[in-house]
């Protein structure tokens, strides 16, 4: 990383920054992503601290700042001081107020240890946080490129404008009418993990193929989540779902570009009358996926995100005060695929569990992440327990398990 970094923040990063600032004004937690790694045996706090503090790249990342002067695009710059990444042990972390964008907490869960890696979403997306885990583990070697270099965009300005308008219309015209079920005055985030054994995972993958998910299992998973939601939490509420699904914009095969958010979105409208069986729902979602890739919708949305670089916080806050309270979707869904692929040990100890925990900053505060590690699928659900009851959550989990495995 250069000594005098000055790199324009991307639209996707600015969006995460706006989300963070908005929720910090209204709640205590920020827009933080989290990766939990549980290993067999004991990791010593001092050993972890030594590894982390010896990694100058992690310190540099943790010391980055974002300038945000009005009427100019925010920039990443190096902070005036170098902030080593904070590494604390549970429960001492509660007394700690770490500086910077990364923080690590060690939890001794005898006979195992758990390492919780927290990263501000403005610094990293799901792939970035996995690369930070790889840096700590020594399986990814610095120097990494801190941010993707923005290539010169040869798309004419008028076409960029058309892309932006197309994406704006897509998002705002389809904002669902029925958000009442999930719009609550108070937000209390809870997490529910639906875990599948290896045999169940194999069965689910066979079922995906049988139900027509030949190109992408994500369509099958989204179909199952939507059907289970319709059958349980949304029973009798609403007539369709509308949601964005993140799509990785990185060039493939390159694990060097670590930081920042490199995502665009595909958008799905799923009427309840298409959620009667998994084959039909999977085909309906797959058709939308193919159509949007054909129409370059993710590219259009990328241009919309670029305009977010100029969006002030007050405008974003105004948006949150509108009748839908800032909710432009029914829920969020992401299939992150294999998490920490090929990583069997962490700091020399066998990994027994990995969890990829999403932030849940946007209304309606209902986020699903489908992930896989060591041959086992997991659905991680973060939700507002002021809007979804324990009973509804349990019924949803049972319905989803039946849909995926039977």
């Amino acid at each position, binding site marked *: 990383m250069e000594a005098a970094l000055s790199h324009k923040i991307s639209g996707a990063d600015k969006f995460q920054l706006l989300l963070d600032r908005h929720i910090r004004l209204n709640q205590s937690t920020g827009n933080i992503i989290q990766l939990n790694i549980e290993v067999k045996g004991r990791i010593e706090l001092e050993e972890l601290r030594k590894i982390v503090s010896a990694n100058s790249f992690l310190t540099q990342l943790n010391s980055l700042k974002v300038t945000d002067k009005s009427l100019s695009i925010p920039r990443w710059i190096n902070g005036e001081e170098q902030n080593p990444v904070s590494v604390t042990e549970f429960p001492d972390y509660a007394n700690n107020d770490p500086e910077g964008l990364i923080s690590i907490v060690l939890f001794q869960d005898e006979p195992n240890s758990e390492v919780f890696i927290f990263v501000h979403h403005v610094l990293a997306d799901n792939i970035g946080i996995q690369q930070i885990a790889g840096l700590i583990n020594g399986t990814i070697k610095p120097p990494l490129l801190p941010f993707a270099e923005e290539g010169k965009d040869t798309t004419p300005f008028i076409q960029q404008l058309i892309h932006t308008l197309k994406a704006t219309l897509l998002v705002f015209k389809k904002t669902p009418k029925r958000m009442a079920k999930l719009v609550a005055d108070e937000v209390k985030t809870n997490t529910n993990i639906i875990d599948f054994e290896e045999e169940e995972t194999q069965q689910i993958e066979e079922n995906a193929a049988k139900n027509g998910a030949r190109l992408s*299992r994500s369509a099958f998973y989204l179909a199952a989540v939507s059907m289970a939601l319709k059958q349980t939490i949304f029973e009798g509420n609403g007539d369709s779902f509308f949601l964005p699904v993140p799509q990785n914009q990185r*060039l493939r095969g390159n694990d060097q570009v670590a930081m920042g958010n490199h995502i665009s979105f595909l958008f799905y409208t799923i009427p309840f009358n298409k959620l009667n069986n998994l084959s039909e729902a999977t085909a309906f979602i797959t058709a939308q996926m193919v159509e949007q890739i054909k129409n370059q919708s993710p590219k259009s949305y990328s241009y919309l995100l670029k305009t977010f670089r100029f969006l002030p916080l007050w405008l974003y806050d105004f948006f949150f005060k509108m009748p839908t309270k800032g909710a432009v979707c029914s829920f969020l869904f992401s299939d992150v695929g294999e998490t920490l692929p090929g990583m069997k040990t962490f700091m020399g100890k066998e990994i027994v569990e990995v969890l990829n925990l999403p932030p849940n900053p946007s209304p309606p505060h209902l986020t699903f992440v489908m992930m896989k590690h060591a041959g086992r699928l997991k659905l991680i659900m973060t939700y507002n327990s002021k809007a979804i009851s324990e009973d509804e959550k349990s019924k949803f989990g049972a319905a989803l398990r039946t849909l995926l495995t039977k």
Partner: protein
Amino acid sequence: MALSKENISDSLVNFVRTNILAQGVAFDISSNLSKTGVDSYSVIEIILFIERQFGVVIPDTMLIPANLSTIDAMSECVFQLLNNK
């Protein structure tokens, strides 16, 4: 002039190198797409490129993992479809 399987492969490799993979990633017709980092989204992009470039639609029955694992396997499918037109 009819397209050979090699012409098809060259065209597909060029598309993947230019539009999907990062610079410097080792890749040829027999590279396993998934292991190279080509995900399902990118496979759909390749299939849409095949439709545009060669005017053939790969039927559902051919969309099986074995046919989508390498550029060589995909080229074989396209070659068969073009010859059965």
